[in-house]
């Protein structure tokens, strides 16, 4: 039966050994997972139809590298524009002007509801709606007039479509981040004589970023993948470049694997960056975890 532990008797409590609790269920589960993983890897590596030789041959092909450049470029430009515009829309939505708030809410509703693909096709075909675009005084004289088709090439159409869509999402992210900063912070800043601009950039935004960054990383990853949709308007991004190649040599699967691996690599890098940024931002902030969690939706921080 259980021995009565006498702490005073030698060899004393420090000499007692500890044994970890056994978890046979976990051992079995781990074994099953390892087995399944090994099977998956071996199938992928040994099935000749994956054509790993072809994958290797095209992996650093110049058209593919250029396509990656286009995808990354579009992602970066769209993200920067959307961050700037999204901040403006979020501030309009939260501001004291009823009109601005309504306009911002309408903007968010419209561009979040229209599927990305529909928007891309729409902007690409804008020339059908407005054959010419002009700069001038509203209802007055026009100074310059452009031919829509030449102005709105596929790249411009793509960036506009992606940016409007992304702006709507990012505006909501930024708004939830700003709402997570307690009002007392703005009041304290105001009593110190900070202007609204100083308060926003130096007090509110840095604290809101902690809430905004994790979902923003996901947004960036979604955006990178969403750029693959531009292949429908024949813009030579990573996916379209791959499609152009396999349309000629019929090596469809290996080339799609090339694209997939590149998307995985870039997403992995973004994730790493996101984690480092989050770790830096999560220090020293008093936004309670539950408030931050609510604003982030289903996201959970590190």
């Amino acid at each position: 039966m259980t021995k009565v532990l006498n702490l005073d008797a030698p060899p004393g409590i420090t000499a007692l050994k500890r044994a970890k609790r056994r978890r046979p269920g976990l051992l079995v589960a781990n074994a099953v997972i390892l087995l399944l993983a090994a099977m998956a890897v071996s199938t992928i590596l040994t099935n000749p139809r994956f054509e790993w030789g072809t994958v290797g041959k095209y992996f650093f092909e110049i058209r593919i590298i250029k396509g990656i450049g286009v995808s990354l470029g579009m992602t970066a430009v769209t993200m920067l524009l959307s961050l700037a515009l999204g901040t403006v829309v979020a501030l309009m939505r939260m501001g004291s002007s009823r009109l601005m708030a309504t306009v911002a809410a309408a903007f968010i509703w419209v561009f979040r509801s229209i599927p990305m693909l529909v928007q891309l096709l729409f902007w690409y075909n804008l020339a059908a709606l407005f054959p010419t675009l002009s700069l001038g005084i509203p209802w007055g004289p026009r100074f310059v007039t452009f031919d829509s088709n030449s102005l709105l090439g596929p790249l411009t159409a793509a960036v506009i479509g992606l940016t409007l869509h992304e702006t709507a999402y990012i505006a909501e992210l930024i708004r939830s981040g700003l709402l997570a900063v307690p009002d007392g912070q703005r009041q304290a800043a105001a009593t110190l004589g900070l202007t609204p601009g100083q308060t926003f950039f130096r007090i509110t935004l840095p604290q809101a970023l902690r809430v905004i960054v994790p979902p923003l990383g996901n947004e960036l990853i979604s955006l990178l993948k969403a750029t693959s949709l531009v292949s429908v308007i024949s813009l030579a991004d990573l996916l379209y470049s791959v499609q152009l190649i396999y349309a000629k040599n019929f090596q469809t699967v290996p080339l799609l694997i090339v694209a997939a691996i590149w998307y995985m690599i870039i997403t992995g890098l973004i994730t790493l960056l996101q984690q480092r940024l989050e770790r830096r931002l999560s220090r020293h902030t008093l936004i309670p975890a539950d408030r931050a969690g609510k604003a982030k939706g289903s996201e959970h921080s590190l």
Partner: protein
Amino acid sequence: MSVTSEENTQAIVSLHGIRKSFRGTEVLHGISLEIHRGETVCLIGPSGSGKSTLLRCINHLEVPDDGLVTVDGSVIGYRLSGDTLFELGKRELAAQRASMGMVFQNFNLFPHLTARENIVHAPRHVLGLSPAEADARAEQLMARVGLAHKLDAYPDKLSGGQQQRVAIARALAMRPKVMLFDEPTSALDPEMVQEVLSVIKDLAREGMTLVVVTHEMRFAADVADRVVFMDDGRVVEEGPPERLLKAPAHDRTRTFLSKVST
């Protein structure tokens, strides 16, 4: 303490007929009050009587619906030109606010900045002090509130009492003409109340103009030159603490004091 010297009899803050409503309910019914240079005024009254709202009207954190606030001769929130008051822009109002320090119940330190950064921020970016000048101010003020060793600590590493003392130092760094305190010890654990009150007491002794909303009757008795009792959006009575706290003239004051007396 009594107000004696010529200069001290001047009102530095005056409130004229302040009215304020929230969603159609008036919570301040035309309050007038003068606060003299170097004076310590304690605002007391039941919960919901409008003490915080009145205090926040002084620096226009709440903009009064009617009435005027003047601080050291200038009308807060407006520019007087001829016989018209022009509403100030946000930057001009910010400049006016810089001359009034405020300390909140929940400290409201900036959590992403260290104590030092909390203190130097406004002197650097609002007053335009050099980093060295602002730093010197921070060091001197942190020593004054007894926290010289916590200069580079983040707020989440400080106790409530320490945070509140940093908040006081932060407000003082702007060299304000008047300091406004809204229940500065109400969010503190009992053992930390005294460390904060003694800092405020020192300020009063040094001649700073203080308006303190408080539930600490002993502190009011100890430090106030004048106590103002508010109820239901009105000033019911005011007077030196010896009289008002010991022999109130109104029933409502008496009822309130009997509830809070310790």
